[in-house]
Structures are given as C-alpha cells and as structure tokens.
C-alpha cells in the first residue's frame, strides 16, 4: 500500500466513525488536551508542559490528557447528552509495535446504557469497520481463565497454580517476579497465555474484571469481587476498554485517593487531582451511563491487516 493509500483509508475510517455516531445523535466534542490535573491511575503516565498564565510569575504545569474522560464527564454532568471524542491522546510510555506516545482515541458515552448495551454498540461499530463481520464471544474474566488457561476459579487459585499454568503452556521463563505475588502471576497468565488466544476470527469481549482493576467502573451488584468493566480483543490485540460508569462524587474522590496512595507505594510521582471534575460531580452526579475508549490506530491496523502501528499512522512518534 502506498503512503497515499494509507492516508486515504485512514481518512475514510475517520469519516465512517463520525457517520456511525452522527446517525445515532451522538455529538462530537473536542475537549481540551491540556489540563491542570492528571489521572492518578498508576498504569497511566501523563506528559506535561508549562503554560504562562496571567497573574502568575512562574509558568504553570499543565498535563496532556491520557484520555478525554474527565472533561467529557464534566460535560455529561452539565447536560451534554450522548457525546464522542475522536482525537489525539498522550501517554508517556515505551514505544512498541502497538504503542505510540501520541495516538488517536475514540471515546464515547451513552446515557441510559448499561455495560451490555455498550458492548453491543462497540461490537456493531467494530464489525461495521472490519472487512468481514465477526461473531462475538463474550466471557467474564473468570470464564476466560477457565476456557483459555484451564484455571477453574481465578479468585481462589494460588500463585503456584498460576506458575504451573505458565510452565504447562511453555511460556518463556519469567525473571524478577516474587513466587508468591499472585496478582502478578495472574496478570502474566492473562497476557502470556490467554490474550494471545483472544479474538481469533471473532471479537472477544472480557467482562467483570477484578474489583481492584475497577478504575472508574461500578462494582458488580451480583458479585462484589468484580467490576462492570469490559475489554474488547480482536486478533489478540486489546482494542477497547469500557465501564458502566461510577456516578457519585464521593466514590470518585475515594478511588482517586486510593490511586494516589498506590502511586506512593509504586514510587510514582504525585499528580494534582481534577478538582473541577469532583466539584462538577458534587453539583450534579454523572447521569446513568456507560463509556468506552477505543484505539483508532489499532482499529485501522486490524482493518488493513497492518502489524506495526508505525505503518498505521501518518508519521510515527520517533520520526515526528
């Protein structure tokens, strides 16, 4: 494919995505990419820059967003109705065939949608874009461990069982993980054993992640060990991540505080919390809604059969 073909097909993809939402009365919002606050999530690393603000002698630090989640939620509280964002986000992470420092994200929120409603819509969007429509496989986190790793109950299994599972699947030796660190061995079974098998000639949706990975998703009413969070995999690649969203300001404050404590434990820098979001949520809680973020560069890779994200973008990070 020539460079011009790539650019044209990317442009077509953007149009398709926008048309999908316009047809559903979901409006596009271009929220700010700079914010005085950053996400406290320990897995996300924000870039920052300094801005000259009137009345301040010193330049003030502003963070580039890792996703448009907080400003979009403020808009939702203020009565925006259904909205989507299609644009760049920034994450200060290592580059890989699936990662760029700046990448194109599609994020959207649907009022009155529960997790299942939104999963159905994500699948519909993905299938409308991929060359061939694919069947859906939906599993809970626990079922995924049963089906793809032979672990009956991931919540009660031991670190030793998880290591045995890695060995049985002939996964390369792991260096630097404490033999008793169940959480990390569980993560390794997921990334090394399970994920490579997901989304083969289908779209695999994993739901009900452990509550500790809830981020800003609601805890399940039926099983408090799990959160109403889902991830979508196609061709073994994580494509989207969604939640049935928390609504109350208090709960946001609580999750943020937990994340800040975790940052201290992990030796990560402290970040300013989004006070504006908390204030807005206090004035009016988030309307009942579900939201999801989807990697557009990855969707384009899948649509075009590209294996390296660098081939899917106009100019890759390291050449910019």
């Amino acid at each position, binding site marked *: 494919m020539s460079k011009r073909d790539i650019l044209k097909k990317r442009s077509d993809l953007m149009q398709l995505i926008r048309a999908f939402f316009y047809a559903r009365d979901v409006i596009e919002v271009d929220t700010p990419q700079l914010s005085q606050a950053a996400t406290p999530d320990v*897995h996300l690393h924000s870039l920052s820059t300094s801005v000259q603000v009137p009345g301040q002698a010193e330049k003030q630090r502003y963070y580039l967003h890792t996703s448009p989640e907080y400003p979009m939620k403020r808009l939702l509280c203020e009565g925006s109705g259904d909205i989507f964002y299609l644009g760049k986000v920034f994450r200060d*992470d*290592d*580059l*890989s*065939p699936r*990662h760029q420092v700046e990448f194109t994200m599609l994020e959207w929120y649907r009022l009155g949608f529960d997790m299942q409603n939104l999963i159905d819509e994500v699948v519909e969007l993905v299938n409308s874009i991929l060359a061939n429509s694919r069947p859906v496989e939906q599993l809970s986190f626990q079922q995924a461990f049963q089906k793809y790793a032979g672990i009956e109950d991931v919540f009660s299994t031991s670190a030793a069982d998880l290591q045995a599972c890695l060995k049985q699947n002939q*996964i*390369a*030796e*792991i*260096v*630097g*993980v404490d033999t008793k660190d169940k959480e*990390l061995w569980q*993560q*390794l079974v*997921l*990334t*090394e054993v399970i994920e490579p098998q997901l989304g083969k000639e289908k779209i695999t949706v994993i739901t009900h*992640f452990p509550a500790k*990975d809830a*981020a800003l998703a609601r805890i399940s009413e039926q099983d408090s060990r799990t959160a109403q969070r889902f*991830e979508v995999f196609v061709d073994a690649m*994580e494509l989207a*991540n969604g939640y049935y969203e928390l609504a109350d300001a208090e709960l946001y404050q609580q999750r943020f505080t937990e994340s800040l404590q975790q940052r201290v434990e992990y030796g990560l820098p402290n970040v300013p919390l989004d006070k504006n979001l908390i204030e807005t949520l206090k004035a009016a809680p988030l309307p009942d809604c579900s939201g999801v973020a989807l990697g557009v560069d990855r969707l384009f890779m899948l649509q075009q059969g590209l294996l390296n994200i660098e081939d899917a973008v106009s100019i890759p990070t390291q050449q910019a």
Partner: protein
Amino acid sequence: MATYSTTDFKGGLKFLMDGQPCSIIENTLVRPGKGQAFNRVKYRNLVTGRVVEKTFKAGEKVDAADVVDIDLQYLYNDGEFWHFMDEASFEQYQASEAAVADIKKWLVEQDTCTVTLFNGDPISVIPPKQITLEVTETDPGLKGDTQGTGGKPATLSTGAVVQVPLFVQIGEKVIVNTEKGEYVSRAK
C-alpha cells in the same frame, strides 16, 4: 560492575545471564492497559550460540557483559590453542577449541578474523567472508569439461570439504564463501 535496566534493553546489548555473556536479538515491551510492564527478550548465549527467550519484569537489572568484537590476525594452532594477534598492538590472544570449533576449518594463517572477547578472552571467531584455499585432494574429473556443469567434493588445505566444479584440479587455489561453506570461483 555496570548494570543495565530493562529500559536499556535493545538489539545487540551484551549482558550476563548465569555468568555467561549474551546478546539481545529482540526486545519487545509488553504493557497491558492495566498491570505491570514486562520485556519479552530473545537473546543469544554467545558461548553456546543457543537462542533463549525470557520475560523480564520492567525495572529488573542485569549485569553488563564485558564483550567486544575486534579484528585479529590468525597466527597458528599449537595443537591445543589457536593463536591470534592484534596487528596494531601486537598483543596476542589464544582461543580454545570451544571458541573455534565451528569455524576452525576456515582459519588461514595471516587472515584477519573478527574475534569476540569476553573479559579479554576469545569466545567466538568469525573468519573472513571469503578465503582462498588450495585443493589438496579431489577426483581428476573430466578433461575438457570447462562448463562446470557437474560437481565433485574437494578437500582443501585446512581439511574443509566443499563441492567444486569438475574442472578444478589438485594444487589449484579456490575462493570459498565461509558463511555458506560454498565454492565461489577459482583464485587467479
């Protein structure tokens, strides 16, 4: 001793694993949306030549291996060791059987080879890509076959055996590709 963190990992990096020098062939970062990052590393053990895969938790450290590649002239074999010399400093190095096992049949005195030193000792040797050797033994072949349509085995002065065209005779010098172990042409 110098150490490398997983953030330093890249192709060609030399490090120690179980006391043996290794060279990274491929390093892939695995960063799940949630959870900790890992580096999937494929590397070659420079002593055994074996390719191994391991997954390192991000932030893990490995010791740097003192490994360098230098050009040395091959001098002679004393029956136990193969001797090489730095043509600039005249410093001499001796390589054991293990270091030259795969390529000793391509060692020609005074040829310049690339020698990998680990803590100052040779652990592997790469001979020049093309070398010239004399044919010491081969069937006389058919006179007049100058097309080189057929082939026959020929033993060369170092003991190496390669397929040569029928017209090549004992006492002639031939050029050999050492990577493929193949005859290239007659030497002028």
